[in-house]
């Protein structure tokens, strides 16, 4: 089963490539807004400190 599973009836590159691309996009949509938020809040806090 395991070897068959990874082989994907010979289309492994395409199937796993698609799921890898999917994973990358889903994770990016989770992480990118989070990083942006941290940067935004830090910039605002910094600007406040300067006043």
């Amino acid at each position, binding site marked *: 089963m395991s070897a068959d599973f990874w082989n994907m009836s010979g289309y492994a590159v395409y199937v796993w490539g698609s799921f890898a*691309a999917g994973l990358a*996009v889903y994770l990016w949509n989770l992480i990118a807004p989070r990083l942006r938020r941290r940067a935004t809040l830090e910039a*605002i806090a910094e600007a406040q400190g300067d006043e």
Partner: protein
Amino acid sequence: MFAVVSADALRIRLQHDVLKSQPPRPQRLPMSWTWFHRLASPPTFFGLAQRLAPWCAGFGGALLLLAWFGGLVLAPADYQQKDAFRIIYVHVPAAALSLSLYMAMAVCGVVALIWRMKLAECVLVAIAPVGASFTALALVTGMLWGKPMWGAYWVWDARLTSELVLLFLYLGVIGLNSAFEDPRTAARACALLAIVGFVNVPIVHYSVVWWNSLHQGSTILKLGKPNISADMAWPLYAGLLGSYLWSAHAVLRRTQNELLLRERNTRWVREIAAATEPGA
């Protein structure tokens, strides 16, 4: 105490706007609309998104895990395409989102242009990168599906070409937004492009019906019974719902970022910024 005062002040301002902009029409604007105006106020929406976003990510993530396990392990191989058909579980949710998010963006564009609502501008700008990412995913997975099944990564048929145009429209909105110094001017330009580009949405969806194409017709959005067996269909539906929730989370978070940036000189943002530890 502060919240009560500001809410009252807001209501007074809103009533003032209503009186100023319209001749007296007593039954025209019932008081029940105040909830909508309050929702559209940046601090209220920020708080709502703060509470809603984790649920979207949590349920969405759980559904996606279930969908991918179902699609990769539990669903049987297709009679024609064997295991290559499993690409559907990434491709179809991405393609559905690419169209749905554009539709939402165009609606925000209409609201932003006509009612000059700041929140709609923020949501519009927040949707663009999320939509672009799923459009790109739909194109990439489509190519990876096309090569082994059709025999070509890319053909210039109506469906593929219009989906590529959709990606350029998203990128256009992102570029336009960053091209202007003033966020309100930028958002209005983006709104205009989003509305003009909406003509492409029905073209993408109906391209396989109106014209000849190499791309097959729609499996699930078809009148009558869907042409996919139940043990293959449920992971697809779970993946669709999960993906919508996942992208809702991303849009909520990006809208929050946009609100923070635009309202950075207001008291409520300063309080949030002061509460976050620098360098944490």
